[in-house]
């Protein structure tokens, strides 16, 4: 199972849109995919029309007394399941701390799911906390949506400094530009400039687009209601690049075996 955490210390940068669309594309390509909505706001859960709230006490979940397996919900899309958000996740830090070994806890809880799913996406809440430490311990890669602004780049530097100071296992960090508006000069400059980049950026970027905002109206991934749009194409490119970077077979299959790869992209993925 490849685990990709969509993470940023900053909020409102497009984490949920990224997690939802990428998870959908993985499932549409035929791999068993799980999305865990770790954000107490429950936006990803809302996009999939799943009622948020898990019928279990948070401490029981964190201590492994209620297997995650029982809390998973199927989405409307073949091969894509969701672990819904719960408002109690705002106390996830405390629960992790009480359960002991907080940094390894998440990875431990996910263990039993490894044989059930090929890809796991974590939609993380903004902030730097014990929860994010635990996410760093469990993820193969951090996908970091970054708006081309000075403040955003600064939080990326903070993340780099934090990871560098840590002696623990570090996930691969994959920043990419998000909500890019080329009408703004600062966006143009920062996207072109190679300065202030603690990690190499992915080539794909997501433009600022009203299509992304419409996900809240349609309550569905973009590929469902706006297949072929600019935003849809951008997320597909991002998905492919991210899959290649985390070493998923899908990434290189799509590139190496062209026919096969093209087929993955030929249709937005049928909904059965």
């Amino acid at each position, binding site marked *: 199972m490849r685990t990709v955490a969509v993470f940023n210390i900053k909020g409102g940068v497009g984490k949920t849109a990224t997690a939802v669309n990428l998870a959908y594309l993985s499932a549409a390509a*035929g791999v*068993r995919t799980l999305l865990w909505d770790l954000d107490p706001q429950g936006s990803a859960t809302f996009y999939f029309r799943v009622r948020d709230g898990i019928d279990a006490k948070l401490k029981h979940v964190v201590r492994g007394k209620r297997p995650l397996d029982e809390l998973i919900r*199927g989405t409307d899309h*073949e*091969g894509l*399941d969701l672990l819904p958000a719960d408002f109690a996740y705002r106390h996830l830090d405390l629960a992790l701390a009480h359960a002991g070994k907080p940094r390894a806890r998440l990875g431990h809880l996910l263990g039993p799911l490894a044989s059930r799913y090929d890809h796991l996406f974590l939609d993380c809440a903004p902030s730097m906390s014990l929860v994010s430490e635990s996410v760093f311990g469990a993820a193969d890669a951090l996908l970091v949506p970054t708006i081309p602004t000075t403040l955003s780049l600064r939080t990326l530097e903070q993340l780099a400094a934090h990871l560098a100071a840590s002696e623990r296992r570090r996930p691969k960090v994959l920043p990419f530009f998000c909500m890019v508006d080329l009408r703004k000069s600062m966006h143009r400059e920062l996207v072109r400039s190679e300065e202030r980049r603690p990690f190499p950026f992915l080539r794909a970027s997501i433009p600022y687009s009203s299509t992304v905002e419409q996900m809240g109206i349609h309550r569905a991934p973009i590929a469902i209601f706006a297949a072929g749009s600019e935003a849809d194409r951008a997320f597909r490119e991002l998905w492919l690049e991210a899959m290649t970077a985390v070493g998923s*077979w899908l990434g290189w*299959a799509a590139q*190496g*075996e062209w026919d096969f790869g093209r087929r993955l992209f030929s249709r937005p993925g049928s909904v059965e």
Partner: protein
Amino acid sequence: MDPSRAFAAGSQTRGRQALAALARAFRSQSERPQRVREAYLDTFDWLIHAGGATLSAIDERGGIVLCLRDREGSVRHRLRVAGAPSFAHDLPASPLRDALSGLVGCRRLLPVVRLDMRRSGLRVEDEQQKTVGRVVLEHGTAIGFDDGAQARRVPPTIEVAAVRGYAAVATRIGRFLEHEQGLPPVKSARLERVLALAGRAPGGRSSKLRLELDPAQPAEEALRRVLRALFDTMRLNEDGLRRDVDPEFLHDYRVAVRRTRSALGQVKHVLPPAVLGRFRPEFDRLGEATNVLRDLDVHLLGLDAVRETLGETDRPGLDALASWLRHRREQERQRLLGVLDGDGYAALVADWGRFLDLGAEPHAGAAPGHAAGDDPTRHARRPIREVAARRIRRAYRRVIAHGRAIGDTAPPAALHRLRIDGKKLRYLLELFTSVFDREAIAGLVKPLKQLQDNLGDLNDLAVQQEALADFARELDAQDPATAAARRASATMLGAIAERRRAERERFRRCFSEFDDPRVAARFAEALEGGRAGTP
């Protein structure tokens, strides 16, 4: 999608009525009717089915989607490909390929049944318009591939698929269909239902000889019946062997040839010398002609076990080895086809068939001038039970004597000879089971089989070792392009040597379990006592 349950709709009209009633009782959206074409694939001996899974190829615009499900219908892996694969190794590297290789190794995938279905259905929703259950009415036709390609009607069925985390909804829908609509639930899984329609049932294909001999029958007649059954088996497997459907056809063909050779060589003083002189060398040659091909098959089958022991970096090297082996295998197969298409083989088939049907020509019988004790066919008229028991006792004593002589430092050749001795014993037991007490013979075959498996594994490992060494010799030691393949060969050779050592250590235990006074007593008893009702 989670496991589903099905209900018999009886007719399409009835099915549509039930769906309409469902739509009134549950918040739902109807889905566009669609046509789904789907073929189920499996190996000829149902390895996927035996592994608790189904593999189907679903026709989609611009390609097909392969779907590996478990028996309850949950999708384990999906993969979009350009065309249906013949082998697991035809697929791009993917979890589905890995899972499928684990089930079928390098067996060929054959279409089992093809479905052409019309589906219409409903999505049951909650108040957020989230899908919480799916209901599909389907009907259509099924064509079984062993069934003369005759299309059969698949009766309309309503399937209820639960969405994960919403099992209660599916239960409510099921209850509604069964109790409110009076539709009977269907117990068996979808594939089984369809196969039953197409006149097929999953199950093994056995190379076991099913032959009932009369213990009192004269040995010559009985032996010809046995040889006839073996010849039929050979001929039955010839087609699959020629078309290269699966390595198992060659294997069964070879077993039949080997049993024939065993019967000709072991059962002495029954067939006239002229017959033996004509056919024994021919069958020996035929057996030899298949040796290399079988070794290559063994090696390819063994690669899957080796794959487990390799790290990611050695996989490309293994793939290089596999394609080299497949190339050699193809050459070897062409050579064998040359033998099978030759005049010599045609003459053997014709003459052997005539002998089996009509018996030896009169002049081929006892040569004049033999003393009574020297008559080369002196056992021909004796009851088969007596003749067989005598041969089996001898073969048993030979295995014991040779096995005891094998010490810890004995060369591999000695173990190989013991394996051949064991095979001869096993073939005799199997060929003549029906003239003894079946259960008693089965009790003898069991410890022998354990010993033979051990010796067989030792032999297979030696074969793999040799082929690997051949492969490694052909690789240019200086060429960086072959570095991965060389490294993989070295790793594999190490792993094989390790397994060989382990099997060699196990040999002592396997043999002593066979060389046991209790087994000896069972032998004596089984060969003494005939079948019930026989004097």
